């Protein structure tokens, strides 16, 4: 039975009030941004290069980015051919089973992982205590945090093969305690946030010895944990780094599906819900009991997001990049300094910013799911929608990561190859590339590009979720608004001049 007219009228009135309020808020936000710009009179991201070129006020640049997201969501709504949408994300090419190459590759990767781990810890302690030439710092941050992560979402996930802790743990007797399935991936969420926290506040990027200690401690904890609850359960649910790479790896075009190496269009494996063969069950115990893929890259059937904890992982990946972007800008450092001046300890300020911001991002996303359910006539729960629409967040995160780390990786790549070529001796003449200014303009393209692909992925997922195509389009609006919010925040951050975070050295 349809709902009665009067309640619907009341709902419409409420909706309009909310719309007007939202618009007012957006206007106020834009005006605030405009005031800041009038004071600093800075140009867009290319401030050094384009003094007399076309200068766009920062609020206009940010608003344009937001509008680009909104407009492309509307444009995606123009594609209403179900067959075409299906063809795009179902496209696969088989590259063979790789029967002979796979074991050799896995062996080599495992060896490389073990050797690198040992070298990072050893050289972190004994090497020169200077970040830019120390093997540990360069390999972990330029190699792992930037390079390997980029390779993971651009090509495919090799971390399960490289992971040194996994290599060792699998050769030991393991699995003495059963992992409580109801915890889901929450331990991994906490772990990812903790590692980012350590990265930004403890100076591991500057002091190789601290880094070596942290890496050794991480290796020890991981080994004990993996032996205790079994490698698969540990690396699937608890280990932050394996989870980090597993999630990013889902964006990549290359993956092992059912024992065969297949290539898909980038990010299209994120469309994983298929009503015709499975129900979109939101029962965490069922989800938690799904067989874990031993290679971590997933089979054709395994879904990456099955519960709210996975949603939190995806949001955490988006948030950590926004946060480290924020505290390393001059404005961010100034905000922190101003709060600390009131008399609060800096670490507390950072903690509140970090956890509070994550809660804000996560809450905004969940709120979008609630609004979405209320807007379309559906029996699906907000939780179902939140879980279903979380995979596109990974593309957003990949775009942000590229925007934050691409230039960093390029400029440090000579150092990386130098330390890798001679791990036991400090490079005598470390080279760092100075990049042309247009590289920073690429960042805008990366952020927007990530969001655009995410919109298409979400569009495909909505078509699988809802019987009516208009419902599918309408269900997207709240999420698009949240995406616009994320974009605006990120575009604003990458346009600001960078500095070292306040009080952290």
């Amino acid at each position, binding site marked *: 039975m349809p709902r009665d007219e009067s309640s619907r009228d009341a709902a419409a009135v409420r909706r309009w009030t909310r719309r007007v309020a939202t618009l007012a808020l957006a206007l106020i936000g834009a005006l605030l941004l405009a005031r800041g710009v009038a004071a600093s009179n800075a140009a867009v991201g290319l401030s050094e290069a384009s003094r007399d070129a*076309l200068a766009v*006020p920062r609020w206009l640049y940010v608003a*344009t980015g937001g509008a680009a997201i909104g407009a492309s969501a509307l444009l995606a*709504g123009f594609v*209403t051919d179900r067959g075409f949408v299906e063809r795009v994300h179902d496209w696969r090419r088989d590259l063979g089973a790789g029967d002979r190459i796979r074991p050799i590759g896995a062996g080599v990767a495992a060896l490389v992982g073990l050797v690198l781990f040992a070298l990072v810890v050893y050289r972190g302690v004994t090497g020169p205590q200077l970040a830019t030439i120390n093997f540990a710092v360069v390999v972990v941050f330029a190699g792992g945090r930037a390079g390997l992560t980029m390779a993971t979402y651009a090509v495919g996930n090799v971390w399960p093969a490289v992971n040194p802790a996994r290599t060792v743990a699998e050769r030991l007797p393991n699995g003495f305690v059963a992992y409580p399935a109801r915890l889901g991936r929450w331990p991994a969420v906490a772990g990812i946030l903790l590692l980012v926290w350590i990265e930004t506040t403890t100076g591991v990027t500057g002091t190789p010895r601290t880094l070596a200690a942290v890496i050794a401690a991480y290796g020890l904890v991981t080994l004990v944990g993996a032996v205790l609850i079994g490698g698969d359960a540990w690396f699937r649910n608890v280990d932050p780094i394996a989870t980090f790479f597993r999630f990013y790896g889902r964006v990549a075009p290359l993956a092992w599906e059912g024992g065969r190496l297949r290539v898909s269009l980038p990010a299209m494996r994120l469309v994983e819900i298929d009503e015709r063969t499975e129900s979109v*069950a939101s029962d965490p115990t069922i989800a938690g009991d799904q067989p874990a893929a031993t290679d971590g890259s997933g089979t054709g059937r395994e879904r990456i997001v099955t519960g709210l904890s996975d949603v939190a992982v995806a949001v955490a990946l988006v948030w950590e990049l926004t946060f480290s972007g924020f505290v390393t800008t001059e404005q961010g450092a100034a905000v922190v300094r101003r709060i600390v001046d009131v008399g609060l300890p800096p670490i507390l300020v950072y903690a509140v910013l970090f956890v509070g911001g994550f809660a804000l991002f996560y809450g905004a996303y969940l709120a979008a799911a609630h609004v979405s359910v209320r807007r379309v006539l559906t029996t699906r729960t907000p939780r179902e929608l939140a879980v279903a629409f979380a995979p596109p967040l990974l593309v957003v995160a990949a775009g942000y990561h590229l925007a934050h780390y691409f230039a960093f990786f390029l400029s440090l790549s000579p150092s990386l190859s130098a330390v890798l070529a001679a791990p036991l001796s400090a490079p005598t003449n470390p080279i760092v590339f100075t990049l042309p200014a247009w590289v920073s303009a690429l960042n805008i393209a990366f952020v927007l590009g990530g969001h655009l692909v995410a919109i298409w992925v979400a569009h495909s997922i909505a078509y699988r979720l809802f019987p009516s195509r208009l419902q599918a*389009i309408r269900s997207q609006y709240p999420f698009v608004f949240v995406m616009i919010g994320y974009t605006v925040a990120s575009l604003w951050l990458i346009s600001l001049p960078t500095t070292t975070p306040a009080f952290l050295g």
Partner: protein
Amino acid sequence: MTDVQSGAVARDVGETPAYDCEDCGRQFYTEDLLILHRGVTHPNALDEAERDAYREAYAAEERAIRSFRLRALGILVLLYFGFLFLYVFYAS
């Protein structure tokens, strides 16, 4: 089956969805949605009458989509010219 139950209890709008899909048990608020759902998700389980109903619902949906496209186009034009003027005024 758990899916159906969780879907039914979580609504706070009052009325219960009255149209059940006989193949997967999913519930819908209107008959049109049920027909579309069966056509999209269980195309092989449809009988002749259902297939006709699906075609009709699909055509009706197509009309609704056409009006959505018009409105979307309007918004896009507004956005385009809005930003054009903003750039004329503020970019120098």
